[in-house]
């Protein structure tokens, strides 16, 4: 495949001084990833990034579930911009794909329908007395990592290769629907052949797997997951992707979106428990990493410091392949060596010969 088309979709990414907008899901399920991002920004790249304790959820989940009305969402987003303005920043770095999509969508709506912006300003002022300037530059945090991928590569402790054989790791990248499917121009590489994660993987020595269901949604789908009666559709979507990627024997997946990382990871657990099927080449699940974790491993950070014990599918298999030295005993020790509790054994992490997904011929 010729991946040159991504160059038609490049966007401007600010070089420094970011206001950081965190992600609800990432904070809850992979909190170490956001910490890792801040660490990379500050330590490895020496950038200024402001992590504001006052900012809130963007209401994206509620919005896409038809629970929160658009005007409310606009007011909340306007408040984040006001906090950014007050803190003296104009570049926003958004940790969540849904938030990123939502911010982009709202800015586009304000552009096309200026009366909606006026209403948002009015609502925000009435409720909080705040005012704001629209950001000069809007980027997803993965855009920033992509932007600095060569700098990171220069500092790399290790590459995305099998430490023993030297062969590049087969990596499935998953972008997240709201990154570029809403506005292809807002994502690096557009919506059909996004390059944001692929660029990192290729820069750091890995090999990207392009499989038939690459573009398919992870299955989160908001209402599909939130209403239990619909959850079967959510998991079916993940399974469709897993079945499609399994023949390529991926060593790991890397996800752009907090929700995708979570569902691709946790549905593997659920499928294994429900149907006794796993999709990894070695009879276990396929580890799902966030791009922050992937970058952290390349930079030589300790996996447990990055919160990789929070994964449902054990990440040790990929750590071993990459030759990462880690202390197995320290996996579930938190700060100051305190035991944080270990999960019960799960089918997705235990090898069983009858469990391997039979690849169709």
């Amino acid at each position: 495949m010729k991946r040159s088309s991504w160059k038609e979709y490049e966007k401007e990414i600010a070089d420094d001084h970011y206001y950081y907008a965190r992600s609800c899901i990432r904070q809850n399920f992979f909190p170490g990833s956001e910490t890792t991002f801040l660490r990379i920004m500050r330590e490895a790249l020496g950038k200024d990034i402001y992590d504001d304790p006052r900012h809130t959820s963007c209401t994206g989940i509620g919005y896409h579930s038809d629970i929160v009305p658009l005007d409310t969402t606009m007011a909340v987003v306007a408040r984040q911009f006001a906090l950014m303005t007050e803190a003296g920043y104009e570049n926003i770095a958004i940790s969540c794909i849904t938030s990123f999509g939502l911010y982009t969508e709202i800015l586009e709506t304000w552009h096309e329908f200026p009366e909606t912006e006026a209403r948002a300003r009015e609502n925000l002022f009435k409720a909080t007395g705040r005012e704001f300037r629209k950001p000069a530059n809007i980027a997803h945090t993965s855009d920033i990592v992509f932007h600095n991928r060569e700098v990171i590569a220069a500092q790399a402790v290790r590459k995305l290769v099998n430490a023993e054989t030297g062969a590049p790791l087969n990596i499935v990248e998953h972008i997240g629907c709201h990154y570029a499917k809403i506005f292809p121009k807002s994502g690096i590489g557009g919506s059909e052949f996004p390059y944001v994660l692929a660029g990192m993987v290729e820069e750091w020595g890995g090999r990207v797997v392009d499989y038939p269901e690459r573009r398919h949604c992870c299955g989160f789908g908001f209402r599909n997951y939130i209403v239990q009666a619909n959850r079967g559709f959510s998991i079916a979507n993940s399974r469709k992707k897993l079945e499609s990627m399994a023949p390529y024997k991926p060593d790991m997946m890397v996800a752009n979106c907090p929700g995708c990382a979570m569902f691709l990871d946790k549905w593997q657990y659920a499928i294994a428990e429900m149907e006794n099927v796993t999709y990894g080449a070695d009879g276990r699940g396929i580890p799902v990493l966030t791009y922050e974790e992937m970058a952290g491993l390349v930079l030589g950070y300790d996996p447990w410091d990055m919160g990789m014990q929070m994964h449902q599918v054990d990440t040790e298999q990929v750590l071993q392949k990459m030759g990462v030295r880690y202390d197995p005993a320290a996996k579930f020790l938190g700060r100051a060596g305190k035991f944080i509790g270990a999960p019960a054994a799960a089918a997705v992490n235990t090898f069983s010969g009858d469990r391997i997904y039979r690849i169709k011929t």
Partner: protein
Amino acid sequence: MGAVNFGYGISAARGMDLDRNDLGPAREIADEVPEFRACIACGGCTATCTAGNLTSFNFRMVHTLVRRGEYAGAYREMNKCMLCGKCRLVCPRGINTRGVVMQIKRKLGDY
């Protein structure tokens, strides 16, 4: 197997996979009634259908699915046909529609 009940299952895919579907029987049917291949799915057969007038039988839908290798239930549905032959009189492509019914009944009884 299926050890844990989370309160939901994994929904079956609605999609048709032409890599997995066995198109052999569909081809055999078309070989028996060659003009069947010229069907343009206009739905005239279903519109005039005596059985379809009284039940949910949709001949056009069933035979279109058959042409895609989706045979499940086709035989059962086809038993709703009364073989009256009106569809053959209205078919703009001159297809022996009753022949198609008979062929589906004969070849797809096991699906």
